[in-house]
């Protein structure tokens, strides 16, 4: 109850009061983003795509179900810090093994609670996501820290989250090579149902990947600026020529860049589990799970058919590549957290892989 007073200060000088939770910190910095998911805080906190970011939850009660070993999206949290309105003291869920507070402490992630997160959300909505700092330091120190934080644009974050060594998961019949730009456990589970998945570091060459004779290649989600995603961009062309390729989130952006398209930083991105996306081929609307601050400029990518569009702001959400067995989407069909409406894309990937593997079906 008598937690230490903490403050959050944004780079533009906006100050928010709260109290310290999780790992203790004098000042932690990062790009401040808000997510509107109403369930799945554990998944969000452990999502590697949040590397470099401080995540604020619009849902007021966070930690209600505690944490459990199964729902993490990576071995450890990747966000720099957590902002909540109210941290649950006594979680309740049959799978819970630890409180969120304990989990944050154990992993060294600081947090701030009691914040008027709605005010913060509205501020970011108006001013855009920006660097910020929070902790027990005084306001001036926090503001200085916030100003010196570079944010995510132009920063290589992928190298911080990608696997050091290849590893294999899954039991499905096919063979998939997954480029780990910050891949999530749920994605591996989904892919593992289709194939034996070899997860490779982000800087793996196309030749090395193709040497594994995959039925398909996945370019995963990941944090930050696609233009700083590293050598992968140069490998896409070769991969596309060799067989089915699927890009997810950052993977979608990377593929677009490789094909000659442009990406841009959004004002505050899409971070939530309720984003309506229309499949332009059928008119069907899927409610999607999203987590990105950069996007592909619609109409900028040569040689693709745009297949999906965000109904909230018209942004590009997916495309297929002409002359290749490849597609990419900006959102997270694997969910975790979020709705399962887009699971059909795994069937789609499976179909691409079996068609490619069976020349008679071409």
């Amino acid at each position, binding site marked *: *109850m008598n937690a230490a*007073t903490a403050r959050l200060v944004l780079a533009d000088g906006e100050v*928010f*009061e709260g109290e310290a939770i999780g790992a203790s910190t004098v000042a932690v910095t990062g790009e401040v983003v*808000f997510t*509107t*998911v*109403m*369930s*799945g805080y*554990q*998944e969000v906190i452990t999502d590697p795509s949040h590397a470099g970011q401080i995540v604020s939850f*619009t*849902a*007021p*009660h966070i930690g*209600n*179900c505690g944490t*459990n070993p*199964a*729902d993490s999206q990576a071995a450890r949290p990747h966000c720099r810090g957590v902002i909540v*309105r*109210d941290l*649950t*003291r*006594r*979680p*309740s*869920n*049959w*799978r819970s093994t630890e409180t969120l507070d304990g989990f944050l402490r154990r992993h060294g992630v600081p947090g701030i609670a009691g914040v*008027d*997160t*709605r*005010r913060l*959300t*509205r501020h970011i*909505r108006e001013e855009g996501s920006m660097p910020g700092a929070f902790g027990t330091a005084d306001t001036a120190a926090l503001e200085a820290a916030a100003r010196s934080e570079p944010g995510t644009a132009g920063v290589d974050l992928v190298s911080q989250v990608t696997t050091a060594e290849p590893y294999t998961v899954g039991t499905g019949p096919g063979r998939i090579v997954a480029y780990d730009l910050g891949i999530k456990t749920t994605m591996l589970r989904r892919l593992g149902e289709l194939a034996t998945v070899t997860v490779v570091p982000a800087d793996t060459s196309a030749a090395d990947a193709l040497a594994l004779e995959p039925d398909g290649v996945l370019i995963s989600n990941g944090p930050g600026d696609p233009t700083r995603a590293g050598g992968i961009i140069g490998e896409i062309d070769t991969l596309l020529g060799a067989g089915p390729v699927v890009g997810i989130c950052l993977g979608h952006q990377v593929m677009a860049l490789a094909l000659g398209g442009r990406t841009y930083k959004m004002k505050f991105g899409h971070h*939530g*589990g*309720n*984003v*309506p996306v*229309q499949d332009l081929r059928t*008119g*069907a*609307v899927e*409610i999607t799970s999203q987590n990105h601050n950069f996007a592909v400029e619609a109409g900028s990518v040569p040689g693709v058919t745009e297949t999906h569009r965000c*109904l*909230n702001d018209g942004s590009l959400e997916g495309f297929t590549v002409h002359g290749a067995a490849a597609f990419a989407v900006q959102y997270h069909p694997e*969910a*975790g*957290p*979020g*709705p*399962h409406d887009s699971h059909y894309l795994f069937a789609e990937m499976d179909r691409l892989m079996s068609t490619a593997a069976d020349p008679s079906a071409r």
Partner: protein
Amino acid sequence: MPRRSDIESILVIGSGPIVIGQACEFDYSGTQACRVLSAEGYRVVLANSNPATIMTDPDLADATYVEPLEASVLTRVIERERPDAVLATLGGQTGLNLAMELWESGTLTANGVELIGADAAAIATAENRELFKQAMIEIGLEVPRSGTARSLEEARSVVERVGLPVIIRPAYILGGSGAGMAATAEELNEVAAAGLAASPIGEILIEESIAGWKEYELEVMRDDRDNCVVVCSIENVDPMGVHTGDSITVAPAQTLTDVEYQQMRDAAFGVLRRVGVATGGSNVQFAVEPGTGRQVVIEMNPRVSRSSALASKATGFPIAKMAAKLAVGYRLDEIPNDITGVTPASFEPAIDYVVTKIPRWTFEKFPAASETLGPSMQSVGEVMAIGRTFAESLQKGLRSLEQGRLGLNADPAESAYDHLSDRHLLDRARIASPDRIFQLETLLRRGVAVDTLAAATGTDPWFLDQMLSITEGRLELGPVSPESLDRRGWRRVKRLGFSDGQLAHLWDRPEPEVRAIRLAQGIRATFKTVDTCAGEFEAHTPYHYSTYEDTDEVVPGHRPRVVILGSGPNRIGQGIEFDYCCVHASLALRDAGYETVMVNCNPETVSTDYDTSDRLYFEPLTPEDVTNVIEAEKPVGVIVALGGQTPLRLAGLLPPHLILGTSAASIDLAEDRQGWNNLCARLEIPQPAGGVAADLDQARAVTARIGYPALVRPSYVLGGRAMEIVYDDADLAAVMKAVKATAEPGALAREGPLATERPVLIDRFLEDATEVDVDAIRDHRGEVLIGAVMEHVEEAGVHSGDSACSIPPTNLSPPTVAVIEDYTSRIAAALDVRGPLNVQYAVKRSQVFTLEANPRASRTVPFAAKATGVPLAKVAARVMVGATLAELRAEGLLNRPALSDHVAVKEAVLPFDRFPEADAVLGPEMRSTGEVMGIDLTAGLAFVKAQLAAGTRLPAEGTVLLSLANRDKPLAVEAGRILASLGYVIAATAGTAAYLRSHGVVVTQDVVKIGADEPGHHAVDLIEAGQVQMVVNSPKGPGPRADGAHIRAAAGRAGVPLLTTGAAAVAAAKGLRDWKTHRPAVRTIQEYHRGVHANQLRLFGGPNRSDGSGP
């Protein structure tokens, strides 16, 4: 697909009277539907028997049939209107059942009417529990084990398979009526028999009990492109076993991980697809085993429901409006989200606050009923509260209930359980009841562990721990002083939802002082916005709630603002009628150029639709919360006279210059016994003799002066609460004792801050007097408009809210009506009324007595408006902001009453079927939940229609059993004579039979006393044997369960029409006489308002129709 152009006109079926389980949420949804369909250019035909609804306003549909919601009547409507389609998914279970009946009888097909929204196959799959379960198993979802039975033997064999305890439910019933739990073989017999009787198809479903599991609901929508969205998830604080309608519920769900939530979401869509709901909103209920996370499907409703109204208010996503659009062909992505304006409706709302719904019960009206909650819904209303945290919203919700509680604790009632040991209290809390939340709080305060309480009650530990944080806050605050609390401390306290009133109680300081100290610390309420998107997009609808945060989102207005205070939770005595008035005020004042600001906390209503007013504040109606709104909005005035007693009580606590219309002083004068008596004396308007008494001696002195019978009641109550008729000194002593007992916390005190020290009022009870209600409006120039004079069917002594009444009066002489109008005008002038006034009179032998006057809109305003075509509530609202009647006439708002030959009869609908233990007699304490209107060209026809609409089908032939108290016997003669002449067989109990015979009425069958040794049948036997088609039984005064009570109970069980007053019997007899000679006709109220002449009555060929068909 865009709007369908192959249909032109659509029949919308409403849900009829307000009953337990089906309240004004269907007016909210139906109103939205009518508005949408009209705006889309369809011809809207509406059928609804409930005149107190907004949807039956003549401008909401092209043709509005205020006619009984009954298949034969709707068939006539369909034949007359020839609609292309019927939309039945917005009128509750009533609308759905009727549509199914019309479909099954072939009426829809024969008339080429399509069922839109959900088709018959989908409705059948969802509504038939057995079909539904099979369908669920087919798609791989788990359901509780179960079986159906059509007899007791079958029931027993099902139980052998599924094991006790079980839950038993009648098929085809709404709100869980007749459902019950059985843990033993005896209970099984009892509950199964009741269920078999309650089901319209004589079938029950027996299901393994999973009481104690967690209960959830998902509100889902689907369009014809198969796009599905979850609008809202709802988690019940009370576990399975307590009907969701009787549970405290929270949105969004709080204790599901994403994995579990998505599993539930997938299942909900699977249910929708399998059941085949083509378009629209549905609700799917789930149970989750707390220890394993196992999920089972409980049921789905293929229509909008009470929960969808709640979900709409909780999220800002208007489900009914969307459902109407989807039904005519639109897809979710083709409909914009009103609130953001830029995003489409094909999304799932994100919520950044916590919504708590708390039911409100009225057990005190049915003393015989046990206050145990179970699978059958018993609450009559609910409140919703929004806070940033559960703690805050729970405390706001509890103080919204207006039951004397200021929050979860820290008020005088927090000590209610001090006399109970932990163990006793825990034992009480094991049984679900309206007080359980407070029992749990007390146990937490005493240090009983969260886990102990969770195990005992099935309440999730998360909720209990949140409650514990409130309790800890309260314990910490006790020893400190308001001055010693720093800014941070204050903020923490207010964020836990503590009201200034609670703090004032804790610190024993006046509330204004507490508020002042708080404001000095800079802690004031901030208003946030319900915007469907957790702040991600800009919201364009000012739908606010208060909380204690950094910043406020209220945007200053441009036009002068008027705050309208709503009527809070529905309860017996104060329901939809007052919401109707508030909504009309908002519409009228908006038209007149004001910005309207609605404050209310009832999620079922039209007033809390964000579309109704310019601004909506979802807030408790307490001085503190209302003051916050006033400070934020800076209105030119506040309307307190349209929301019933709730806002009226606040009048004296708000700045006097802001009270629009009649002043707070005048309101007080009308409520104050002495002042009111003086006023009547000065005006020389007769009142029943009376006096006040503080104790029994004083009471005896009063009755010695005025004589018996006398009417005794506590002062300052609504709805005739705790009112008793006493016939002698012994009665008086008993009642005085009872009134004192009601002063205990928990009993009568529930009605709100009832000052129990206030004296008891005693009046001479006027026997056999005709009661009359008048609704009038007076403007500041002094002109008085008599809106309607309503003659009651039942004599004075039956609460005006429970009696039938007619416009125009049918028996009062013109001179008497003139006297009544004159008294009304003079009372209005003496009270300096500026706005609405309701006066009640009793007419005895042509002498007119006033019973009471209320300078506010009354329950009858909507009925009067529907009957006369004059928009009384709108006129009243305009008058309150300074318009004169003359100006309104010139403007065209105030029209002349319809020049027509019709008679409109209002009939009350009573909830005795929900409280089988209670005796179904009418008295001075109001117990009806809703009302209907019958309208036709004779009083008799209108009365019969009103009965039919209220669910009483008067028989076309057969035996009528008469058994009346002595004072009613002359009326029995009149009724008996008519009924005999119509060919009914008259049966009567001994005294009544003798009296009838001595007055020349033929009595064919003598009925013996119950338990008597004489040969012959007694009444209960006859009723149970199906040999009686109608019962007239009036009570012979209070006492033990006399024969009469058994007769009434038997009639109730057997579903035989029951009339409990002689006056109603006469009205029914006259009605049946008219019914037998006239062809039934349905007409719209628009036609009546234009004028329908008596020559449109069509007689059958002869004086007596021979086809035997009844109403």
